């Protein structure tokens, strides 16, 4: 028996571009940089002064009956994106979604702001906030989304650094196929633009002190970002039965682990994840019209990803648009897979390839067509989105246009 088909019926996002998917797509398609001066709770001599920081979200504006003190920023961002996605799916007034709806959240760190505040208070000899634990639990966002929509089915978090929400989408996809549930609210969320978060990433030497330039000559690092994106996945059968609008089909998922190095990416692991996703979707590499790359703009990632793409696409490599939208929404770590899945879906809907901005000149180590600086109108029937994490965890997803 062939597995059940899975479709995307709702999308929502909160990013540096603003509240909503429309704001994200407008920035992505128009090539608007997300690098802004950042605001931190306290200055501990941070050298990098810019980030793709999402707008402030006051959860009391959205859920008047709840207490804002319950929510870390990561949970607030996730809830606001979930509200948009559930409404987009036509389920805002559907009542409790019940035991056949799962909640799967992907996040690299979770509630870093709360953890930092608690540690700061402890060091100052003050008592930690009594809500530290329920707010800081990595699974807090999953529980709050479940409570907001009465989802009583499976609920959990996947944490695999920058592959977190790509893996969340992948495993939710498999759960729907296997019949564990009929619907899943899949979330990617990250809020690590904190004093300590930025200091930690600074020390890694992978943040660009100027501009993030994926696949370009002269690139020197990434732009860190925060935000959330939510996709409502349903079986095609359920979506059809309730007359839901289908925004895209989720067709394939591949995931691998390098098992080699914590920081250095590996060509074998990355290309194998893409090959598995294509095989799972039952399509050939030649059928892919667009790749939303991991494309962090570190020296190593982009060269390694280009080589891995070369193994997949062979001599067709230079004719497949491969773009990185990370200079636009930032590298949002655990949220990246979900945010980029939404950019990919919007690109398919609009027939528009978003550009790779800040591009200076070609790098012989990155022989991809990265659609430099200006987007391109082009029909996209099938697209792939890549997420490769520190620690060597790789994930690739294949999406198809709704109709």
């Amino acid at each position, binding site marked *: 028996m062939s597995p059940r088909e899975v479709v995307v019926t709702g999308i929502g996002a909160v990013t540096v571009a603003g509240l909503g998917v429309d704001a994200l797509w407008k920035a992505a398609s128009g090539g608007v940089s997300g690098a802004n001066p950042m605001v931190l709770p306290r200055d501990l001599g941070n*050298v*990098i002064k810019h980030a793709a920081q999402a707008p402030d979200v006051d959860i009391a504006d959205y859920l008047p009956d709840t207490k804002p003190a319950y929510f870390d920023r990561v949970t607030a961002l996730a809830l606001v994106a979930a509200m948009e996605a559930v409404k987009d799916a036509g389920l805002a007034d559907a009542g409790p979604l019940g035991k056949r709806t799962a909640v799967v959240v992907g996040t690299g760190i979770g509630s870093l702001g709360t953890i930092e505040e608690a540690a700061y208070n402890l060091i100052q000899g003050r008592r930690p906030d009594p809500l530290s634990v329920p707010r800081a639990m990595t699974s807090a966002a999953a529980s709050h989304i479940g409570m907001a929509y009465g989802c009583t089915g499976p609920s959990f978090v996947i944490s695999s650094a920058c592959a977190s929400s790509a893996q969340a989408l992948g495993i939710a996809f498999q759960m729907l196929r296997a019949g564990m549930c009929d619907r899943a609210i899949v979330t990617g969320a990250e809020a690590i633009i904190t004093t300590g978060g930025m200091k930690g990433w*600074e*020390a*890694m*030497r*992978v*943040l*660009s*002190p100027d501009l993030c330039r994926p696949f370009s*000559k*002269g*690139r*020197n*690092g990434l732009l860190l970002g925060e935000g959330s994106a939510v996709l409502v996945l349903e079986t095609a059968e359920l979506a059809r039965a309730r007359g839901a609008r289908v925004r895209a089909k989720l067709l394939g998922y591949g995931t691998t682990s390098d098992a080699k190095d914590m*920081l*250095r990416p590996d060509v074998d692991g990355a290309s194998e994840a893409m090959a598995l996703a294509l095989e799972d979707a039952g399509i050939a590499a030649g059928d892919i019209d667009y790749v939303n790359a991991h494309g962090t703009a*570190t*020296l*190593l990632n982009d060269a390694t990803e280009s080589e891995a793409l070369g193994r997949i696409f062979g001599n067709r490599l230079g004719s497949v648009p491969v773009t990185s939208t990370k200079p636009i929404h930032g590298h949002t770590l655990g949220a990246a897979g979900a945010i980029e899945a939404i950019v990919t879906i919007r690109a398919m809907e609009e027939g528009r390839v978003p550009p790779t901005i800040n591009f200076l000149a070609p790098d012989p180590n990155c022989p991809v067509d990265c659609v430099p600086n200006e987007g391109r109108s082009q029909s996209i029937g099938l697209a792939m989105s890549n997420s490769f994490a520190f620690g060597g965890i790789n994930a690739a997803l294949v999406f198809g246009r709704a109709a």
Partner: protein
Amino acid sequence: MTRDLIEVIAKEGMVDMAGVGPDTTLASLNIASVDYMMILAAIEEKFSVYIPMDESLAEVKDVGGLLGVLKQRILAEKKA
């Protein structure tokens, strides 16, 4: 400055700099990507300069080349 830099490289890269010259390759000293991170962090502390991993650093193969790139960055930052 050169001596300061050599001290930092020796300490953070955990290598014995005795008998090391400008032509000594970084590979022979077993300096890897994580050592680079440690060296660059120490240089930030000492000289207040943020140096990201970019092409000029990735292409460096020997001690003399590494010193050259680091010095150039520190002086450029001082001027700015």
